[in-house]
C-alpha cells in the first residue's frame, strides 16, 4: 500500500516510528520469552485461572452491552445537538478516560457502596452491590463507556448529517432516520468503539479491586488473578498474562476484520 502513495514520507520519520513499535512490541516478546511452556497448559487450565477467564469474558461482554445501550444515545446527543454546557458535559463524561481507575473505584464505592449515595436505597431493596459480580460490571462499564462515546461521536461528526437531512426531508421519522441511516453510516465507528470498550473492560483492574473486592468466580477477574498469582507463582502470572494478551489480540483482530467487511 505504501508504495502506491503519490507523496513519499520523509525518510527520518521511520526511525521514531520503528522505535515506537519496538517499545510496544518488546515487552510482549519479553512476556512470551518468560513463559515456561512445559507447564503452560496446566497453569492456564487450573480451576482458578479458568474461573477468572470465564468471569472476565462474561463481565466484559455485559459491560460492553451496557456501554452500547447508554453510550450510543450519549454519543448521538453530543454529536447531533447543541445545548448550553455541552462542552463541559462532554469533558466530564470523558473523565474516566484520564482518571486513575482506583479513583473511579473509590467514586463508585461512595455511590453504590453500603454507605454510599445510593447504597441505602439498594440496601432497602435487599440488594448488595459491593462484593458482587454486578460491582465488577459497574466498574468495567464506568471505565469503558467513554471509549465508546469518544469513538462513536467522532464517527458521527465525520459522517456529517447530510444523509439524515435528506432522509428526513423524504418523510422518514426521527427513529427511522436513526435506525436506517445514522446507525449504518457509523457502523465501523460503533464496532471499533465497542471493541475498545470490551478491551478496556477486560483489562480493568484498579476500580474492580477497590470497589468489587476479589473472590474466585465472583469478582476475581483475570487481571486480579494475575496480580494475586504474582505473589507466589510468577510462572502462573506470566502464563495468564499471555492468555490476556492473546484474548486482547483476538478481539482486535476480530474488530479489524469486522471493519473490513462493513
Amino acid at each position, binding site marked *: 500500500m505504501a508504495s502506491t502513495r503519490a507523496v513519499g514520507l520523509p525518510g527520518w520519520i521511520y526511525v521514531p516510528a520503528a522505535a515506537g513499535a519496538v517499545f510496544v512490541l518488546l515487552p510482549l516478546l519479553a512476556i512470551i520469552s518468560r513463559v515456561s511452556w512445559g507447564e503452560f497448559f496446566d497453569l492456564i487450565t487450573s480451576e482458578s485461572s479458568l474461573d477468572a477467564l470465564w468471569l472476565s469474558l462474561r463481565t466484559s461482554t455485559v459491560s460492553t452491552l451496557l456501554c452500547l445501550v447508554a453510550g450510543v444515545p450519549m454519543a448521538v446527543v453530543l454529536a447531533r445537538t447543541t445545548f448550553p454546557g455541552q462542552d463541559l458535559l*462532554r*469533558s466530564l463524561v*470523558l473523565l474516566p*478516560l*484520564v482518571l486513575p481507575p482506583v479513583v473511579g473505584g473509590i467514586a463508585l*464505592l461512595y455511590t453504590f*457502596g*453500603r*454507605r454510599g449515595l445510593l447504597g441505602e436505597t439498594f440496601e432497602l431493596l435487599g440488594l448488595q452491590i*459491593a*462484593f458482587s459480580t454486578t460491582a465488577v460490571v459497574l466498574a468495567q462499564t464506568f471505565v469503558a463507556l467513554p471509549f465508546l462515546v*469518544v469513538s462513536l461521536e*467522532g464517527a458521527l461528526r465525520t459522517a456529517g448529517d447530510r444523509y439524515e437531512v435528506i432522509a428526513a426531508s423524504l418523510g422518514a421519522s426521527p427513529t427511522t432516520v436513526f435506525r436506517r441511516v445514522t446507525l449504518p453510516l457509523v457502523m465501523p465507528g460503533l464496532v471499533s468503539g465497542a471493541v475498545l470498550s470490551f478491551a478496556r473492560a477486560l483489562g480493568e483492574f484498579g476500580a474492580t*479491586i*477497590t470497589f*468489587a*473486592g*476479589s*473472590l*474466585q468466580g465472583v*469478582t*476475581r477477574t483475570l487481571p*486480579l488473578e494475575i*496480580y*494475586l*498469582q504474582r*505473589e*507466589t*507463582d*510468577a510462572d502462573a502470572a506470566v502464563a495468564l498474562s499471555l492468555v490476556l494478551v492473546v484474548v486482547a489480540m483476538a478481539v482486535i483482530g476480530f474488530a479489524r476484520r469486522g471493519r473490513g467487511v462493513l
Partner: protein
Amino acid sequence: MRRWYATAAAVALLAGLSGCGSDDSGAEAEETTVTVFAAASLAGAFEELGEEFEDDHEGVEVEFNFAGSSDLVSQIQGGAGADVFASADEANMEKLTAESLVGTPETFATNVLEIAVPPGNPAGVATLRDLTKPGLNLVICAPVVPCGAAAQRVAESAGIIFKPVSEEQSVTDVLNKVISAEADAGLVYVTDVKAAGDDVGGIEFPESADVVNVYPIGVVNDSENADLAAEFMQLVLGDDGQSVLAEFGFGKP
C-alpha cells in the same frame, strides 16, 4: 479539540513523572544513604527509628521502601540497591537467604491477628466464631499472601471455615473495606488495627495465639554501607527499637 486535551494531559503526565526524583540530586553530595526495604506494616515504627538513627549519625540519611514483603523480595532479586531488608514473614526472608542475597537474619518482632470492625461494630461481632455467621460480610486476605495464610491457619486451629465475601491482595485492602463499612469484619494484624486509629475497632480473640507471625531482619549482602546497615539492624533489635515497636503493637520476638 479532544485530541488536544489528550495530548496536553499526556504531556503534563510525562512532565510530572520526569520532574520528580531529580530535585535532590547533588544537593549535599557527601551524605550517605542507608536504604531500608521493609514490610508495609512496619512503616510507622521504622519511620520513627529512622529519625532516631539519623539524629545519632551525622550526615547519614535513612531511606525507606515500604511495600509487601514479596514485592520487596522481587525488587532485591532484581538488583534494587537495598542495604537492609525487614520482612513480615520468614518465608519471604528465606527466599533471599537461600540465594545468599541477605546475611543471617534475626527475628525482631512478632504480630498476631485481630478482628477489625467498622466503628460501632454494626454487625455485633464478639468472637472469632461470629465471623462465620451467615449474612456477615467477612473480608480476609487471599491465602497466597501472608495475612491470608495466617487467617486460614487460625480458622483451621479453631475448627471453623470462613466464607469471606472477598479475599483481598493485602492488609490495606482489607482495612479499606472495613473502614468504608462495606465489610462487617476483617482479619488483619494487631498493628494494623492500632495504626488505623479510630477508623476501625479491634477485637482480640484467644485463638490468635496459635498463629504468631515472625518478623526477621537482615543486611543485604552487596550493601555498600554494610556497617551502617548492621547498626540500623542493631537499633531495631536493641531496647530503643523494641520499645518503639511495642508502641506500634508489635510483640517481642
